[in-house]
């Protein structure tokens, strides 16, 4: 050790005067300059040559290649000053372990982001549903993917979640199908029902003629005979088709006298019919229900055994003045 500051200064100046040091500086600078130029050339070259890849993938690969080249040249430059990287390499394992534990989540997201970009599962501009949220993919960043929902909220989804989740891309393909479930009353003319539905599909200009509209019988439901009408539209016009064709089916059914029934329930009282007694609303004797011929209903009407109050028919539960006895 040199304790004397004067000697220390002298030693430093002597070292500066050493031509070998300056030569090392020149060589290191040369390495750095060449490294920077070469990495830029690699980046631009890859960007231009990898035209068959998506822009995100191209950018990613170009950056990785450019930073690798630059890193090698920086290491070479530092070696000119006598840096020994074997020590660093030895410590690298321990450092990696520590960094790995500390940045486990970030590293996971980072690697997931790489997979997302390389797999091309989603791309900016896609409309996707992830974890129950639907929106447009704005960007796929280093750690997260950003969605803009249709109510204009920004949703940041970690790339790890994106990789683990089921992603539904709504506009990846140019055309899309809409399935409309509709039930018709049991007394409907099913031939007329099918013709009406297909006519509606043929009349709607957004409904594609091919793939042809599909009509699938879903069987006999509790209250209706159910059909599924599957029609195709261009993906951009899917929502418009969905809204228009629902209205048009209702209008066509109304015009053709086809009923879309409400859920119905038939009550069977067993062996003995339920008795129904008609009573006047309290405090208004004049509004007492009358029989079909204008006479006041007999108090005993609907008594067991009279046969006039069978609840077997599907009745309106909101009918006034009727009450089971």
């Amino acid at each position, binding site marked *: 050790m040199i304790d004397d500051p004067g000697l220390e200064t002298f030693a430093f100046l002597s070292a500066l005067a050493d031509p070998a040091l300056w030569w090392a500086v020149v060589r290191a600078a040369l390495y750095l300059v060449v490294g920077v130029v070469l990495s830029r050339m690699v980046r631009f070259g890859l960007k231009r040559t990898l035209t068959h890849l998506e822009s995100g993938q191209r950018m990613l690969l170009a950056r990785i290649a450019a930073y690798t080249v630059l890193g090698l040249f920086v290491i070479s430059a530092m070696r000119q000053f006598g840096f020994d990287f074997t020590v660093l390499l030895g410590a690298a394992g321990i450092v990696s372990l520590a960094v790995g534990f500390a940045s486990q989540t970030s590293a996971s997201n980072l690697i997931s982001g790489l997979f997302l970009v390389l797999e091309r599962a989603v791309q900016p501009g896609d409309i996707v549903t992830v974890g129950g949220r639907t929106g447009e993919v704005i960007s796929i960043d280093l750690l997260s993917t950003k969605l803009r929902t249709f109510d204009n909220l920004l949703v940041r989804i970690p790339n790890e979640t994106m990789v683990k989740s089921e992603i539904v891309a709504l506009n990846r393909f140019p055309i899309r199908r809409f399935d409309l479930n509709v039930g018709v009353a049991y007394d409907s003319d099913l031939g007329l029902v099918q013709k009406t539905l297909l*006519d509606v599909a043929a*009349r709607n*200009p957004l409904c594609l*003629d091919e*793939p042809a509209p599909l009509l699938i019988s879903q069987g006999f439901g509790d209250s209706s005979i159910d059909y599924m009408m599957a029609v*195709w539209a*261009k993906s951009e016009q899917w929502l418009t088709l969905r809204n228009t064709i629902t209205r048009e089916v209702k209008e066509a059914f109304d015009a053709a006298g086809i009923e879309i029934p409400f859920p119905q329930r038939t009550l069977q009282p067993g062996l003995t019919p339920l008795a129904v007694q008609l009573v006047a609303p309290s405090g208004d004797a004049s509004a007492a229900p009358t029989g079909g011929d204008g006479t006041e209903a007999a108090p005993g009407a609907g008594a067991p055994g009279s046969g006039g109050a069978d609840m077997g028919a599907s009745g309106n539960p909101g009918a006034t003045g009727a009450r089971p006895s």
Partner: protein
Amino acid sequence: MSQAPSDAGGPHLEHPDDEAPAVETPPAEPSERPRDPRWWGSVTLPVGGVARWRAGPSTVFAQRRASDWRVWHETEPDAYAADAERAQRVDDEPPDTAPSARFSFAETPDTITVSPSLADRPVIVRPESALSIPPGERVTLYASAPVWMALQLQVRRPKRGSKGPSPVVVTELPSFRPTDTWFGPSTREGELCYAVRTAARTEVADLPLRPHRAVTPVTVENQAATPMEVTRIEAPMPFLALHVDRNGRLWTDGVLVIRGADDDTTVKVTPGAPAGGERLAGPRDTRSFGQTIGKTFSRLLRGESR
């Protein structure tokens, strides 16, 4: 700005030609001559004037105002209403509804022109009944498709090289909006087209004269050893020119389809209308048809021999 034809119009059902009324049905006119089906033309209007065009189910009103042109487009529910009315100034008030489009100018040009144009997408024509062409036969089918009504105004172009105003298509309105259809090998690739159903007549004399439809003659030659089932035909409308014959019938360029002995299909455009006539408009797509044939039209008769 030109409005895309695909975005305009209301819902209609396409019927086969056989079910539609023919335009030749003479109207009750003193001359007992059929009305001239040429509905297109120019009208010069003063400020406040209204003009009207009628082509099949579509009626277009245009009103010139001091600072804008207003356009109304009405479509009858009957897709085969076969009226045709030449461009004329009318004394009627414009429709009471809001205009379909407005075109603003510092000073409105006084002349508006409405002319027919072909669809901006290919049209898939489906013969109503199955059509089979035996080996060695060559037949010509006539398929018609609706035209669009292109509105043109004189627009001042302050660009270098332009000398004075020049006509510009400001909007295109469908005389009849055909249904969309998908044409491609799968639901993942293909292209959006229009779909029409046709009787695919083989005699010119049988063709009804419809003022709002252009007839495409498709000649199919089957050189293969097996019969050829024609289930659908893609008429490459963007590559076809529009013509009008002496009777006022609209025609497109012809299409020649040759099914070779080794089952390959060649498609060519044969310029000109069968009966000659006047050329009204050139193709929308000015690229050579041959450049895109491999991409789009090699599958013109896809579905044959199914």
